[in-house]
């Protein structure tokens, strides 16, 4: 590659590239306003007076998928599971690093092992275990996410805790603080950057996850967004393309809004999470 002699030219090149990059999403947006019979036959045309469907697709899409319920359950599952993971695994990581006996080291190795096991290895047995323990609801699944997602979180947290000087805790002990006080008053505030990193990685995973909730949840009662969209495809014979486009838009818009709002943290979190495995 040569030196950038024409920075303005590169701005133009990347502007065009960026437009092409977001085009797939724009295409869905355009089609979400078209009458469903025209979506497959002329996907690239802009809506005109003949093909314009207004908000019809959105009304049907929201009804057919029970959109607001699935959105709500997705929020409950994502927020609850992430908070559980952050609280429990940060405590565990600190305990592992400080205690450092055979039990702690064995536990740490098990968590490392968890990171290289693909979900398919446990999907059948996990869904049976969850079923037996009645965890097939949006609150029980928090425990499943904590269990299957523990490896990565513990790994990132232990890496961070190792860098915290032990003298801080000694000082707190001399001041008369017990382990619980030390963790919540001293250690947890120090761990804040790594907590944000883990939170971002977990939210990105759990919000978009399809297979785990699909196999674990009682899907007659609870559907996440991904499950609802997959049902729209499978559940109605021929797909209602109009409703499909509308629901896709409805699912994408909140994610983009969230991204614009917290872009800086997300990018930092991804970089910090890319520690060597």
């Amino acid at each position: 590659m040569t030196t950038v002699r024409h920075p303005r030219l590169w701005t133009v090149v990347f502007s065009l590239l960026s437009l092409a990059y977001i085009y797939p999403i724009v295409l869905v947006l355009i089609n979400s306003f078209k009458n469903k019979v025209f979506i497959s036959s002329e996907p690239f045309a802009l809506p005109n007076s003949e093909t314009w469907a207004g908000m019809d697709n959105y009304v049907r899409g929201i009804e057919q998928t029970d959109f607001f319920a699935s959105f709500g359950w997705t929020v409950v599952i994502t927020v609850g599971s992430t908070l559980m993971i952050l609280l429990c695994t940060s405590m565990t990581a600190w305990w592992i690093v400080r205690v450092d006996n055979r039990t702690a080291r064995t536990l740490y190795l098990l968590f490392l092992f968890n990171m290289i096991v693909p979900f398919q290895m446990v999907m059948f047995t996990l869904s049976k275990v969850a079923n037996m323990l009645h965890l097939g609801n949006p609150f029980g699944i928090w425990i499943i996410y904590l269990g299957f997602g523990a490896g990565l979180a513990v790994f990132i947290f232990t890496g961070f805790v190792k860098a915290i000087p032990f003298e801080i805790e000694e000082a707190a002990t001399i001041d008369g603080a017990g382990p619980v006080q030390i963790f919540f008053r001293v250690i947890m505030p120090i761990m804040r950057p790594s907590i944000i990193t883990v939170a971002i990685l977990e939210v990105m995973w759990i919000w978009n996850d399809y297979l785990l909730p699909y196999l674990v949840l009682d899907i007659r009662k609870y559907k996440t967004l991904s499950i609802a969209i997959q049902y729209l495809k499978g559940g109605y014979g021929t797909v209602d393309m109009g409703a499909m486009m509308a629901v896709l838009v409805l699912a994408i818009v909140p994610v983009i809004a969230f991204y614009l709002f917290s872009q800086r943290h997300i990018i930092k979190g991804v970089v910090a999470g890319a520690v060597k495995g």
Partner: protein
Amino acid sequence: MIRTLRRWGWLFAGPTFLAFLVGFIVPFALGIYLSFTKFTTVTDSTWVGLENYSKILGDEVFVHSLWYTVAFTIVTTVIINVAAFAVAYMLTKAIKGRNLFRGVFFMPNLIGGIILGYVWLLLLNGVLAWWERSISFSEWYGFWGMVVLLSWQQIGYLMVIYVAGIQGISDEVIEAARVDGANNRQIVRRVMLPLLMPSITVCTFLTVTNGFKMFDQNLALTNGAPSRLSELLALNIYNTFYGRPGFEGVGQAKAVVFFVIVAAIAIIQNRLTTAKEVKA
């Protein structure tokens, strides 16, 4: 303090460990056991030894999906890493609006695989309609469709990691190379790439394992069409479990094989690239 803390294990490590037992250890151990049995639920299993594993070898669809997945992973790993590095390299230079561009390229990562699958189904089928075909026309249509989709999704993610890596290289090293008369190409090949080995390790690790484990996008985009030829491994295992009654044991045995492959790749790949890391 440590001695006190040791006694507090039930509080600090207990909840995570209990969930880990339920969400990982028990299902994993049970999974290994069940791969040697014939079962339909979990409680009605009868021991069959290696029968499930020998059935895998005769399963042409599985063997096909294994090679299909290997090809897919190689192609996506190369494309995604090369493109992500190229974009990162350009966007660390003084280009106006580079933060905006980085933001745009990263965005698809936050959208779920099922959603992305249907977004690209519309676009790809729209394009293929010119030739009166669709993505389910042949296994290779699905293959390249998935390559395009996964590249579009992941280039931005790896770009972010490469950008951080490039910014971590001190200007002095680059300057020193320039004073020694190195041109841009030489600087990239002989100075930047060796110093970027840690980023390359992470990025290739991510793309290789993600390629092997891809499921959602495959389900939404092709669902294996035509006639299970575009099934990647994860989808093949899923369909064996839930699409063929009586084959649960075979499905579990496939899952064990899958786990061994992914674990082996993770370990070997990490050893290989870590060995190539250097310091300035």
